[in-house]
């Protein structure tokens, strides 16, 4: 019954006469702008985690540095602020991208939570525990992507606001500084663990992706992967020539 409900939503793929040796088809998951945004975010996230979590390690860990320790921590603090600024600028550009660029608006539209996400979540749980034989057919962004994106927005906003308060500590009430330091530190731990536990597994460490999924570098995936991972989106693309112009690349595996 449930499967029938889902399948009724899936657009029918028009039948085509396939050429004898069709060129391999690739599907765009991240366009060049999105790739750069993601890359800058990854670099700034990594550097912020590195320079921020140094403060969580026991202080004596760095005593071997001797008199250079003070310089190391000066540059730690400087780099943390530089990459914090980079991350905030990337986020600000992303907001501009979501509002003023057609691809951004498409991203925002596809990222909106829908009823299908809730049903997908339950069907996926049933599939994972072995009650259902097939996983749900995901659209461009699955419920996992949407949850992660939501967490990223909330987390980045929280980190940026508390980070700016800590950066301009002289102007604020000590209570606000204490609470900001607390939130900044704990949210950082949560974000790092979520990325390590969830994002790395989901994107790179799953058996069929291990050890790395190079989509974050190329921006594209092949047709087999598209059919397996995002069948609903695949069917939508294949049934709409306009979407094909946006998402389908034929020939060499490189993003145009």
């Amino acid at each position, binding site marked *: 019954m449930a499967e029938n409900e889902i399948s009724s939503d899936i657009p029918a793929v028009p039948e085509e006469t396939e050429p004898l040796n069709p060129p391999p088809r690739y599907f765009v998951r991240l366009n060049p702008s999105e790739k750069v945004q993601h890359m800058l975010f990854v670099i700034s996230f990594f550097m912020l985690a590195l320079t921020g979590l140094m*403060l969580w390690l026991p*202080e*004596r860990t*760095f*005593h071997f540095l001797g008199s250079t*320790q*003070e310089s190391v*921590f000066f540059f730690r603090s400087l780099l943390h602020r530089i990459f914090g600024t980079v991350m905030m600028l990337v986020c600000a550009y992303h907001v501009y991208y979501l509002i003023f660029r057609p691809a951004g608006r498409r991203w925002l539209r596809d990222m909106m939570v829908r009823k299908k996400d809730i049903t997908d979540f339950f069907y996926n*749980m049933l*599939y*994972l*525990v*072995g009650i259902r034989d097939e996983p749900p057919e995901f659209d461009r962004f699955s419920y996992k992507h949407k949850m992660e994106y939501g*967490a990223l927005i909330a987390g980045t906003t929280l980190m940026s606001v508390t980070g700016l308060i800590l950066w301009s*500590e*002289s*102007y*604020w*009430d*000590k*209570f606000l*500084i*204490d*609470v900001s*330091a*607390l*939130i900044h530190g*704990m*949210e950082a*731990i*949560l974000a790092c*663990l*979520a990325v390590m*536990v*969830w994002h790395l*597994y*989901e994107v790179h460490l*799953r*058996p*069929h992706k291990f050890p790395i999924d190079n989509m974050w570098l190329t921006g594209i995936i092949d047709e087999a992967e598209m059919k397996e991972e995002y069948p609903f989106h695949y069917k939508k693309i294949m049934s709409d020539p306009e979407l094909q112009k946006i998402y389908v690349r034929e020939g060499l595996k490189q993003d145009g």
Partner: protein
Amino acid sequence: MRCKKLLKYAAGISAFVWVAVLFIFCEARAADIGNCLLCHKYPGLSRIDENGDLKLLFINESVFNNSVHANVKCEGCHPDIKKIPHENVRKVDCMLECHIIEPSSEKKFSHKDVETFLSRSVHSKIDKEGKPKKYPEDYPDCKDCHDNPLYRPLSFFKKVRPGISEIVLGRCRVCHKKDEFIFRFYNHITTRLHAIRSPKNIAEVCAKCHEDPALVARHGLSRKAVSSYAETFHGKAANYLSEGIPDCLNCHVNIGESVHQMLSHKNPESITFKDNKIKSCRMIDCHPHASAKLAKYDVHPEFDKEKSPMEYYFTAFFLILTGGTLLPLAGIMFLDLGRRLFSRKKEDKE
């Protein structure tokens, strides 16, 4: 006969060598006029006193000669020693007048003023009415804070930071001829221009009392001062051995006054009084543009339910959020992994 002669010669030469060595030894240490180091130079010189406590009587010569008291002769602090070998000596009274003449007043030097400062301080053993405070033994004596390695040769040693500038010494040598005087005078001045101890070291000294749970409870002190300092950005930097970060003394001593005159935070004249705290934050090297709000809240926050409920609930919320997020994610991750590996095996069999 020959043997006896040889022995006489040997005894004569040996006696001459010993006398010469002792003479040279005495010359090298101007302050050790009584030749006390003849016995006290031996490591391990010690005894068990009538209370069963081990008294270490060894004086490390090199530490002594480089200490602030190197110019003070032994009898200056131990005036009750009149003969050698001596009997039990009285405890040193740091308020004694010593033989050094204080150049600005041309009077004998003494630490008596420190006693006056201490009597006004929160650390005084006597109260405003001149009566002894409750638990007077809990209040610090000189050696509780001034743990000079000279007195405690086995305690931790201060970080060695000579900080001597040859360029400046060159200027001194224009008028002053004796290098020993130049070095001593230079050290005397410069050690007072910079902190002689690292902030971490200062916090450790204060921790001896302020982190003692029994003492804190006896005096109704509201917090574990040093561990809560370690939780702040200042404390973190101090533990990273930063030397430019404020330590306990920077915030608890009125600006421009002696560290011995530390006042209670309830005293309106104290820098730690609620309306005055901002003055120490606003010091030129710290946060000169600090808003008055900066010092309005608890400077030493302790994240427990009673003292800082807001911080406590924020911490609890984030712990629950972290656990509540990561545990389901890890669960889904393992289910996904199991399903993929299981399905793959099944497909391989088919």
